[in-house]
């Protein structure tokens, strides 16, 4: 490439039913509402509850996103379920200097040594936040806050409208969970 790319690629790892696809949707809609170009899509196929799944975001602040293929070399990976870390090679293809953002009780150095991750790691106990704020351990909207903080790709306020639209009367609580993770994510 002769010009610097303005494209950011994020790969989400979760389990069927955890709402990874919804997170990508919220992030893309927020970015688009800021006038950016963005794409969100699931790993296509029959969804099975509990099985490892992937979902993808491409966000470009300058030009329309045209690549239509799974993300093999992401800038960031997001892990919604820490039990995936020893089952799925989540850092596969992760670009040099790329980040791993994990929902876990542990801290970054514990995760790095336990799973031999050679990339920067950001951690947040999203399960705890989701339990406290939402009353259920569904971490997708909570992890959105961590992703917004670490990537800096959008203003976190831009996620409010999509979250309100998607969750209706539960919108406010999901926004609170997102904001809490935004504050608490450690890196």
């Amino acid at each position, binding site marked *: *490439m*002769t*010009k610097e790319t303005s494209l950011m690629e994020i790969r989400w790892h979760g389990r069927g039913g955890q709402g990874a696809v919804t997170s*990508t*949707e919220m992030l*893309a*809609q*927020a*970015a*688009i*509402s800021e*006038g950016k*170009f*963005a*794409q*969100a*899509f*699931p790993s*296509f*196929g*029959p969804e099975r509850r509990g099985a490892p799944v992937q979902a993808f975001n491409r966000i470009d602040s300058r030009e*329309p*996103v*045209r*690549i*239509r*293929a*799974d993300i*093999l070399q992401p800038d960031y990976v997001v892990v919604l379920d820490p039990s995936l870390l020893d089952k799925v090679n989540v850092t596969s293809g992760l670009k040099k200097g790329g980040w791993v953002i994990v929902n876990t009780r542990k801290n970054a150095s514990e995760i790095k040594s336990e799973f031999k991750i050679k990339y920067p790691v950001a951690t947040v106990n999203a399960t705890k936040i989701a339990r406290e704020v939402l009353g259920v351990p569904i971490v997708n909207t909570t992890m959105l806050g961590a992703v917004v903080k670490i990537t800096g790709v959008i203003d976190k306020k831009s996620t409010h409208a*999509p979250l309100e639209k998607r969750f209706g009367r539960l919108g406010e609580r999901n926004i609170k969970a997102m904001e809490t993770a935004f504050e608490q994510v450690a890196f």
Partner: protein
Amino acid sequence: MATRVGVEVSIALADAVKLANPDVIAAYPITPQTHIVEHLAELVANGELDAEYIPVESEHSAMSACLGSSATGARTFTATASQGLALMNEVVYVAAPMRLPIVMAVANRALSAPLSIWCDHSDMMSVRDTGWIQIIAENGQQCVDNIICAFRIGEDKRVLLPVMVHLDGFNLTHVIEPIELPEQSEVDKFLPPCKFPLPLNPDKPVAMGDFAPPIIFTETKWAQEMNIRSSKKVILEIWNKYYKAFGRKYSPVEKYHSDGAKVVLMTMGAIGETASVAIDEMVAEGQSVGQIRLRLWRPFPFEELRESVKDADVLIVLDRAISYGGPGGPLASEVKAAFYDQVKKPKIISFVGGLGGRDITVAGFKDIVKKGIEIAKSGSKKEYEIYGVRE
């Protein structure tokens, strides 16, 4: 003024159908078309769309109901994919000779067996000769725009033909991306109400699609052929009117850096956008490469195709379907036929890839172009190359 919002392509397509204010929707859900018809059913159930939604028991019934409703002059929409399109096949053939301007979205998906829910163009190729006008969208915006155009094209008195809008299953149907949905008032200005010239009416009985003995059958088929061939100028006219109203331009063969390019890659469908990124990179590296994307599959745009590659020495055609035991890619066959009797023509290299949802990456497209150039130089004994297969 319409604004760009982040929305799933299937939902946007259904919202575009709503903007066209259809009278009847008859459909049967099938992956990956499901979100389109679910959303339409929702809009009807919520009272946001004043249309009759017929939840039929099969795709064969869906198209049969569409024939009936369209024949009464009702604006009619359906959508399907793959096995659904195969099941409705015999009825799909009936719509064009009966001059019924039904609009159908096809969420392209591989045909069984083995079972695959993922995208390729084998379903599209199975209805090639049904006489429908067939438009291929490359992104969500093109789906929205062409659904609106499809009603106007099909219902134009000079055309009166059914129109399919193809969109790649999953690669488009399940993607959230920025799409601008036109305002209702703008669409109302662009799309006049459906005025079918000879609607079924108990007070003025007519017979349609009647029995035709040998003395008249050839004439009806020739009339049908003249009809679809002459529809191209109306399609161009309506696309041009759409451009004037909404600012987005469509043409049967869309050119991308192809003028003056020595090597041109031809694609159809969503992966054409990935290919464009590869073309950008190759152009930046100093290669004389370009791309053309087919937007109109039927009627086939012979003149536009020839014009678009007039500077090219090599034309690499990528198909997402195989004609088993035949010449390889169905699109490449058409392209070769279009050039056979031309004095100046490029070497046409046929590639098949992206079957049953297999991704082709940017690097993959660069590889295809590189291999295509090599084959053009060295020649090949094979009818076509299959890309990325593990042998």
